């Protein structure tokens, strides 16, 4: 687990910190804890695109991508430093995260040169915002049962069907989408991965209001949507493998241990300034126990992430680490929020604009939002299936 950073890496961190101090947007231009996709105000969308562009021009976006695709081929250590500093300095999250972390790496690996040339530069600058068309009303955990059909008609696919829980579809310029191209093949073998321009006629996006009260995800309906065949990524009917090659990116994206550390720091700050039963909340023995418990679990994930990093650097296979990270971190985030709500007592119900609210209502909102992340990206139960089958070698169930 030797991860002593080189002097160059530390210089990179210092330069990044200095840059952030100078260039971070004012907090009023983005929403606190803005790791959701609601962006209810168009001015926020514009500000978020501008932020990603500024960050990219400064050399702080997708630095791990190969140079020929606009990245810097940076080491994993350096990518981790970047991620840590952005989160710990509370930089606004990137509006183009889905493009940067999911479709970008997929196109680098499986895309045609034309697809790479058309999309990768715009993904980097947030000129293209992407959404993920995976889940359907009848296909949640059983994603491979998806039914949205794509029928070949000359040079195009004609797409009909419906996607759901599509984060950011209401803002997105493009969607990477799984569609069924062979209804007779076994379910995993009749799926293709296609890129769909969200301005294509026949697409209807209906925002869904989440339990947080925000509208970050959507239903997307496809009615005879004509998609050029050149938008197929990978081979026809091999979309499941293409999608799987980036699913672990999503799981790791949802499982940022730095985000967990930030939540933990916020919890400590909250408990140190709040009172409970007439004394400082941190003096309450039960609160101390619960805080120490989530702190210990947070620290374990921090060192575990370093170990995984070290494994990657030394070329050891990552195994099922992404599934464990997703399972553990999303549940831990939810537990940290639950401790905060315990500290807050009745104040824990207050929403953003309420008088007497703490942390602008972030805790009850994050408590709900983190529950959403336990469900999204493969539920905890699906991760446990993966862990027990691929990690422990237990047989598949019926």
């Amino acid at each position, binding site marked *: 687990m030797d991860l002593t950073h080189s002097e160059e890496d530390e210089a990179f961190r210092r330069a990044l910190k200095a840059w952030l101090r100078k260039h971070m947007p004012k907090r009023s231009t983005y929403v606190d804890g803005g790791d959701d996709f609601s962006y209810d105000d168009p001015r926020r969308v514009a500000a978020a695109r501008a932020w990603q562009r500024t960050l990219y021009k400064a050399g702080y976006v997708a630095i791990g991508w190969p140079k020929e695709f606009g990245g810097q081929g940076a080491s994993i250590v350096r990518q981790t430093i970047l991620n840590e500093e952005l989160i710990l300095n509370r930089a606004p999250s990137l509006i183009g995260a889905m493009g940067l972390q999911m479709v970008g790496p997929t196109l680098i690996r499986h895309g045609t040169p034309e697809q790479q040339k058309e999309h990768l530069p715009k993904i980097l600058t947030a000129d293209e915002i992407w959404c993920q068309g995976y889940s359907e009303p009848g296909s949640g955990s059983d994603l491979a049962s998806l039914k949205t059909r794509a029928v070949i008609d000359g040079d195009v696919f004609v797409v009909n069907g419906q996607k759901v829980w599509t984060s950011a579809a209401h803002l997105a310029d493009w969607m990477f989408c799984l569609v069924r191209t062979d209804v007779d093949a076994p379910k995993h073998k009749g799926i293709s991965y296609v890129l769909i321009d969200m301005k294509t006629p026949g697409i209807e996006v209906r925002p869904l209001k989440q339990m947080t009260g925000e509208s970050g995800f959507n239903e997307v309906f496809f009615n005879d949507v004509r998609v050029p065949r050149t938008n197929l990524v990978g081979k026809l009917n091999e979309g499941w493998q293409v999608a799987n090659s980036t699913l672990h990116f999503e799981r790791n994206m949802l499982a940022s241990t730095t985000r967990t550390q930030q939540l933990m720091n916020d919890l*400590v700050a909250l408990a140190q300034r709040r009172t409970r039963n007439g004394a400082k909340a941190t003096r309450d023995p039960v609160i101390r126990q619960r805080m120490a418990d989530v702190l210990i679990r947070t620290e374990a994930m921090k060192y575990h992430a370093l170990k995984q990093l070290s494994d990657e650097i030394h070329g050891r296979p990552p195994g099922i680490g992404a599934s464990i990270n997703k399972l*553990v971190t999303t549940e831990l985030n939810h537990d940290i929020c639950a401790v905060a709500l315990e500290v807050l007592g009745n104040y824990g119900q207050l929403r953003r604009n309420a008088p007497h609210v703490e942390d602008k209502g972030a805790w009850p909102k994050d408590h709900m939002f983190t529950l959403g992340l336990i469900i999204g990206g493969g539920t905890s139960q699906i991760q*446990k*299936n993966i862990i027990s089958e691929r990690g422990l070698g237990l047989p598949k169930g019926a």
Partner: protein
Amino acid sequence: MTADQQLLADSAREFLAAESSPTTVRRISEDEHAFSPELFRKIVEQGWTGLLVPEQYGGLGLEMLDAAVLLTELGRSLTPAPILSSAVLATSLLCSAGSAAQRKQWLPKLASGEVIATVAWLEEGDRLDPGGILLKPRRARGGLRLSGSKLFVMDAEIAHLFVVAVRTGTGAGEAGVSLLLVPRDTPGITVTALPSIDVTRRVYEVKFDDVTVPPTALLGGEGKGWKHLARLLDVACVAIAAESQGGAERALHMAVEYAKVREQFGRVIGSFQAVKHIAAECFSEIEPSRSLVWYAAWAQHGSPRDASRAASMAKARLSDVYSRTTDRSVQIHGGIGFTWEHDIHFWFKRARCNEAAFGDPAFHRERVAQLSGW
């Protein structure tokens, strides 16, 4: 882990698989003192009794991270041998508190296995703070005279040397705590077994009835014992956490292998989600906890300012994880897991004893809270 540590882990696992199989562990645990001189001799040949002893005294001069690697393997195999008690805890105290003469007298013999030592700390109050040390020697001709008793002393019956925590000053604070080196054969000592659920590791009551030791028996100077005991607590936490890591890995492995062959309703029970999810939850706790143990072990030398906090974190977490894992591993075994005949209960019991030893999870979470400045 460095390549050397990986080598130590691999060779220890290989050695223990051959020399300390569950059958052997069961046989040794049926011995009155759960001790096999034959196995101990082989362990000495591996150099493990000298792991923490400096090279000038005939040891390997390694650090806590190496000890943690070894203890993980000993916890995995549940080997009944005085490594934790003697080679880690008592040896650490002698290294940190011993005078040149004391180190010269005892460390080579500890390394060679000629002497087994153990720490006698706890009393009836079962407290790890200075106030729990009440055993108070009287000044007498020829030195200090000791009457009273110590509880939960590991491996006392096979030990040749006790490191005894006593109160030489007034009050109940840190200032009056001293350590005494008391050979087992000093007149007036009786050792009584405290039959425990864990038959693979024995604990005893050590009674002192007008036991007289010379002034040279003081270890670390009069009234200066507490800082060494406080440091020992960190070492013990890391050691037990490492053992618990190995034990939890082994218990889950046994449960998973059983779930792959045991059939009910016409299929192996490991294909049922009710079983798979329990196993996956254990695995998801065990994997990240390993990094916590390694970090805590490394911090003992590599980051002394964070050493206590890291040790308490590892102890609290591994206690929870080991107990929960063994609960669930017995559960996955079903009825056979509840029998004496099956081996899984040995790990279940070690988990319970490890959970309580050197501070339970609540004790260490509170310590983490204090050391975090809350």
